[in-house]
């Protein structure tokens, strides 16, 4: 019942993820961070098989850092997205990573961008994306209320509306959500939306 979703606004991109770590009927913890900060200006929200998620996101984060050390400049968001797609595609026919990714980034030249990367390595640049059962509610809410060049407040309000829908309509809804933002000042945690404290 994991869900990750994201959207692009005016000069920023937002990624929201639930923070429950679940094993069958047991909730291990409800403050699990599923949105990894890849580098100063990239956020990678991942959902799927827990072990694959942790392994893959760490692997990508370290490779993104390695590129920067070797070449002196950071990867663009598009390049990072394509690198991830390549790794997922190579592993797909051997030992697939069951991880769905929403990649948000800010580049000085091209501004904010959001990428949808499926677990079978389908890559697409989008304005809004969502994964998991929550996507049925989040995508519909965003289709209705999203417009290009939203401000941060408008985007957070829309994210809250999506979270509200998920909480009220999904049978085993996650308890807590984390909202992270990336803009020209960098990638950082923005807000938490809690129903239970850990």
């Amino acid at each position: 019942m994991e869900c990750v979703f994201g959207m692009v606004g005016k000069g920023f991109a937002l990624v929201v993820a639930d923070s429950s770590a679940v094993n069958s009927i047991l909730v291990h913890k409800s403050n699990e961070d599923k949105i990894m900060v890849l580098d100063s200006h990239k956020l990678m929200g991942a959902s799927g098989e827990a072990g694959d998620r942790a392994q893959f996101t760490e692997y990508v984060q370290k490779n993104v850092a390695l590129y920067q050390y070797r070449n002196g400049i950071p990867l663009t968001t598009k390049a990072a997205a394509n690198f991830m797609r390549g790794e997922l595609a190579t592993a797909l026919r051997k030992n697939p990573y069951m991880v769905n990714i929403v990649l948000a980034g800010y580049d000085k030249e091209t501004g904010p961008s959001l990428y949808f990367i499926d677990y079978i390595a389908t890559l697409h640049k989008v304005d809004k994306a969502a994964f998991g059962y929550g996507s049925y509610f989040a995508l519909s809410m965003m289709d209705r209320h999203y417009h290009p060049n939203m401000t941060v407040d408008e985007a957070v309000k829309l994210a809250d509306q999506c979270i509200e829908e998920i909480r009220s309509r999904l049978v085993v809804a996650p308890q807590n959500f984390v909202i992270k933002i990336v803009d020209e000042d960098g990638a950082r945690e923005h807000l938490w939306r809690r129903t239970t404290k850990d």
Partner: protein
Amino acid sequence: MSIFEYNGSALVAMVGKNCFAIASDRRLGVQLQTIATDFQRIFKIHNKLFLGLSGLGSDAQTLHQRLVFRHKLYQLREERDMKPETFASLVSAMLYEKRFGPYFCQPVIAGLGEDDKPFICTMDSIGAKELAKDFVVAGTASESLYGACESMFKADMDHEELFETISQALISSVDRDCLSGWGGHVYVVTPDEVTERILKGRMD
């Protein structure tokens, strides 16, 4: 649901008088959920050669990257662009290499060959080439497309009429297929120019 129908696609290519047209739908889906309405399925290999890839989106992207790589190498070695017939053979060989673990794609290749003679062909996911003189189709809407093209096609259309015909055939076919649609993307290629147009159809 078959893996070929996972993302949903519709592709058609038609031959005209010294020109060809290739068209695709724009939907990217994950089974019955629509993810995007601006997905690119037709790729330019060079000015007179276009490749459309229907089927699984991930394999279409992988195949496109591999083929662009092979074509760039060919250009460096041969110092010219690949002929469409040669390219079709290359695609066929690459697909058959993976005979027992195939790419889940059905390519549509369209180009202007020697003396700007139009060439189109399609193949199945393991590289069985199907050359045609009039039109080729691929994707989840292929059955509707066969019917629409068979009834609307005329030989030796000029590029204006060809654009109208291929657009009507594409739109009427994807309207009957829930997995493809959300507009159309049409390329009409003559020896002098390439025209790219976006179609608006039923957005559902």
